């Protein structure tokens, strides 16, 4: 064993394609299962959330406009980049959660495969859910699912990587941009995933990642007037009523999910119906 002092990573937020510290200057301690100090990630503030929403809103137009093929390739690229960094993610999961290496490897494998699964949905969801409507008149009439806009998500505490992937992939594959709050106790996987994002040609602002406390950030997510939808899968069901009630002020679409299926993508898409006359 060498006596080399290793170079530790500073875990920061990921907003608009950059890695800022929280504007609040606050951090909190992450410890492993045995209570040993691991890192001081940012304790994100309301202002960080607002900055992230501004970035997400600005990024929405371009990401929404990207072709489905392009979106699919970028999601696949996320899978490629994650595959290449398997060891790093396995190490972090083992370090923070104390699970066996074998179990951590399964989670990383599932995460890569889940990204590949969602990547393939990019150019299929419209044909699955869209429709050509046979109206009683000389009109061409079709319905297509479209992105909803800016979606906020609260990632589950565990599994910290796979749960995080489920909190972002279905949202962005539909053309939305996302502001996601990572697992509080195990935020390292999410923050390292920001490095995967940064090397995947995903436009800045499409995914924005905060670390911090759910009870602090969730109410601001629920009341933010420029957030269109909220995935509260990672929030205790005891808090759902309060969040839904607060979110009613701009009629946010607020859902929690139990499984992966195309409905998870469609939940944060709006159906648009277009009419045009047919005639000479």
């Amino acid at each position: 064993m060498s006596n080399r002092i290793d170079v530790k990573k500073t875990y920061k937020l990921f907003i608009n394609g950059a890695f800022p510290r929280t504007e609040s200057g606050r951090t909190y301690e992450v410890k492993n299962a045995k209570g040993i100090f691991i890192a001081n990630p940012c304790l994100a503030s309301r202002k960080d959330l607002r900055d992230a929403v501004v970035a997400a809103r600005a990024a929405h137009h371009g990401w929404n406009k990207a072709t489905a093929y392009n979106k699919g390739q970028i999601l696949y690229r996320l899978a490629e980049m994650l595959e290449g960094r398997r060891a790093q993610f396995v190490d972090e999961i083992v370090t923070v959660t104390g699970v066996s290496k074998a179990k951590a490897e399964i989670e990383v494998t599932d995460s890569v495969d889940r990204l590949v699964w969602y990547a393939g949905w990019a150019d299929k969801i419209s044909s699955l859910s869209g429709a050509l409507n046979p109206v009683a008149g000389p009109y061409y009439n079709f319905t297509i699912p479209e992105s909803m806009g800016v979606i906020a998500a609260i990632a589950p505490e565990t599994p910290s990587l796979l749960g995080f992937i489920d909190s972002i992939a279905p949202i962005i594959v539909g053309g939305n941009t996302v502001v996601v709050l990572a697992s509080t106790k195990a935020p390292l996987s999410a923050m390292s995933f920001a490095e995967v994002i940064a090397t995947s040609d995903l436009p800045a602002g499409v995914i924005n990642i905060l670390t911090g406390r759910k009870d602090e950030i969730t109410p601001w997510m629920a009341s933010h007037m420029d957030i269109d939808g909220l995935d509260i899968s990672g929030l205790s069901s005891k808090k759902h009523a309060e969040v839904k009630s607060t979110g009613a002020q701009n009629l946010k679409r607020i859902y929690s999910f139990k499984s992966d299926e195309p409905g998870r993508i469609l939940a944060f898409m709006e159906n648009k119906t277009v009419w045009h006359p047919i005639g000479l």
Partner: protein
Amino acid sequence: MEEKLSFEYAPAPESRALVTIKPKYGHFIGGKFVAGSKHFPTINPATEEVLSQISLAAKADVDAAVKAARKAYTTTWSKMSGKERGKYLFRIARIMQERSREFAVLETLDNGKPIRESRDVDVPLAAAHFFYHAGWADKLEYAGLGTTPKAHGVAGQIIPWNFPLLMLAWKVAPALAAGNTVVLKPAETTSLTALLFAEVCQQAELPAGVVNIVTGDGSTGALIVNHPGIDKIAFTGSTEVGKIIARAVAPTKKSVTLELGGKAANIIFDDAAIDESVEGIVNGIFFNQGHVCCAGSRLILQESIADEVIEKLKNRMAKIRVGDPMDKNTDLGAINSKEQLLKIGELSAAGDSEGAQRWSAPCDLPGKGFWFAPTIFTGVTQAHRIAREEIFGPVLSVLTFRTPQEAIDKANNTPFGLSAGIWSEKGAKVLWASQQLRAGVIWANTFNKFDPASPFGGYKESGWGREGGRHGLSAYLKGVSHE
């Protein structure tokens, strides 16, 4: 000297002989009409004549309706095959067609809308809605919601006064097709066609309790929304009330769909067919007195054609025939209520005081009843209340733009997102604009078209979910993974 061309129309009143209005109505619960305790009058808004006394449902009435709906769901409706359920819906559609003239006359008397519209739009579309959904009842497993989609149970449905029978059809038809039973509350000012629909349910021999109708005001609506025996809430009405409902159901497991307000942009590009656009503008804002959530209430005109379009529009508006809704020549009928008339007046006054220029069509308004002349405001800015708030009347706000992107930005600058209109003869531009507009229904080179096969509903604060088509049906089925 140039002679002024004038078109005089002889009165062509529809007969009301076909319609029998009882002096007093109860609720329709468990397949029977049951007497209510308190009553309030329903009037013809065109004459202020009292048409009948309507029951105000209290807690006991709503409880009885929910109990009847639950019993019908458990013992009959949920056990019946989709094929048989569908046949009841087909029967209802056919009876509505048979009695369409009666429905149209009653709707016009109670609502104030022109007979031409109730006869040609509301009633035929309502029947079509039942016919369309009837065919879904035995095909639910193909609706894209998994192989065993399930009904919610009892649906509580609250509908507005602008399209009383049509909104009933939008709510009841998909609910029944999907296997739910319903408790429906029509709007306070327009209960009569819903009560006539109850007779249709009896004639169709629909099992008792599958459809229950309780009449009343907002307090009755609140009883439905908060009732623990209801599994699904469907509401059409204002965004304000929609938010109250969203808060009320937040702690519950109730599934909710909301069709709420709008402030639709109707964009006219300089390459539009001008005369057709003018017809589209008139249809967009003056159809049904502008009592339309998806009304094209913000006209967004390209600057280079603005003067020409406004001149033609004023000319066309001067020819709108305002008056007796029962006259088959009438284009614009009565405002539905005194309350609504006051609201339209208040917002129009805000248009004046905020600096927009008002122009109203020169027309004689009847002495009795509630009336508002077709009106446009020019010189409207995005900050004006008349550009931001839903007026829900025959009042159009005109804004202008120079570039297509500016048109889109102005159109999308609203918390609503229900509908939008695009007028251009250039296909690529129409499709581009339809992609950019953040609204659930886009009418390109047409406006205010509806069909049971066509999903309808809004983005943003215009509501949750869709009505019509496969997408609308899904609102009445469980099967999606999220809650």
